[in-house]
């Protein structure tokens, strides 16, 4: 059974099946865009939370930690209800609001899922820096932005782990993308929803083959990100 799946996986990859290529492309597109946006929002927030003191900070952090462990399906449900024809955003009919059962809706859900992880781990990485470091950088003549950038570079290992954690949370996610994407062949079907579908169809070796491809993509992506931080880890 397992061997058969392996062979099937290899066959699928070698055949360069267009349907499979499409599923992979949708997965990469959705995860990639989500991760870029979640990082663009989450890294600055994490740095901000790690450095600034303000009223209500504890509440924000508690919310963030809750978000880190929040079930993706609930996020999916939330986005579904927002974008539904009868939902607050869906009713607007604005071109800025992604349509339900589109990759836009999936990206929206995945941003909400991965953003707290990126922000939370970034915050932890920044908190791990010496509390006097920022003052020392200022004392060496750094502007606020230069100091911030240096701190980010100093915390790079932790920040990359934050991005990897965000990536991990959405590449393997299935509940939310199924709910708001609809698993439509050729448009919103991702590797994970395809795996669920093949399993439900009883096509276990096909499902396993897709699982192996997912594993491979995840491995390549993580290895690439590790390469980025490799220098920092080696030292």
């Amino acid at each position, binding site marked *: 059974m397992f061997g058969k799946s392996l062979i099937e996986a290899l066959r699928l990859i070698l055949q360069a099946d267009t349907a499979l290529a499409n599923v992979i492309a949708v997965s990469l597109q959705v995860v990639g865009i989500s991760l870029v946006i979640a990082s663009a929002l989450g890294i600055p927030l994490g740095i901000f939370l790690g450095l600034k003191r303000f009223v209500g900070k504890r509440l924000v952090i508690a919310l963030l930690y809750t978000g880190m462990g929040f079930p993706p399906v609930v996020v999916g449900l939330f986005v579904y209800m927002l974008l539904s024809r009868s939902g607050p955003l869906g009713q607007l009919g604005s071109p800025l609001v992604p349509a339900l059962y589109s990759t836009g809706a999936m990206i929206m859900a995945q941003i909400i899922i991965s953003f707290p992880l990126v922000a939370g781990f970034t915050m932890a990485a920044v908190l791990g820096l*010496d509390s*006097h*470091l920022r*003052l*020392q950088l*200022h*004392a*060496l*003549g*750094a*502007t606020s932005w*230069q100091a911030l950038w*240096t701190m980010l*570079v*100093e915390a790079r290992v932790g920040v990359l782990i934050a991005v990897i954690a965000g990536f991990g949370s959405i590449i393997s996610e299935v509940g939310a993308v199924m709910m708001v994407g609809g698993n439509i062949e050729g448009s919103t079907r991702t590797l994970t929803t395809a795996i669920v579908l093949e399993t439900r169809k009883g096509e276990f070796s096909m499902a396993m083959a897709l699982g192996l491809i997912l594993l491979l993509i995840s491995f390549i992506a993580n290895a690439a990100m590790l390469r980025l931080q490799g220098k*920092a880890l080696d*030292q």
Partner: protein
Amino acid sequence: MSELLYRATNLTKRYEERTVVDVASLEIERGEILALVGPSGAGKSTLLRLLALLEAPTSGSLQFQGVEVAMGGARPSLAMRRQLTMVFQRPLLLNRNVTANIEYGLRLRGLKAKERVAQVLEQLGLTDLARANARNLSGGEAQRVSLARAMVLETPILLLDEPTANLDPYNVSLIENAIRSINQQRAATVVIVTHNVFQARRLAHRTALLLDGHLVETLPTEAFFNAPDDARTAAFVRGDMVY
């Protein structure tokens, strides 16, 4: 030696309910080496950070080169801040190699003075460590790099917080020589915080005693050690201060 660099009047710094610094009057002249001595917890480091324009005073007045920078005054400009460099007690080195650490302040200013870097490395005995990662240095090496990182900027003012704490005699004299030479060759103003009265005596033109945030007195070093006005200074110099 008569240009006034700093003038602090009724300068205080409070953290929540605790007053850490409460200095009635302090003047620092350009080109001098001033030592701030006192027991730990006296507020020396906090005062140094105020002088470094890194923190805002809670009340009182602080004039830097005639410009008010305390409450109600101007926010210290970048140009103003870049006239001084402060070295923290702990060597807060960046996770890079020694050379990159020393070049850091220069890069912030868009400079790349290779010769100056080489010279400072040489002066502090770091040439062999130029390529080593800062993470793998010993305590003494790290402290020297931290000082080199500040010295290479050649700012007119250098503020040093316990630059030789926990170092062996060889490293202590290496660093003290470096401080003396930048004061003599470039006429740089140096404010050095130390708990070691002998170091103050070796280096400083004037010495000030800080106790519980209050400045007891500021005297020429010779007078500070031999004929202090205040009995507490005499006791501190003798080493029988209870703290």
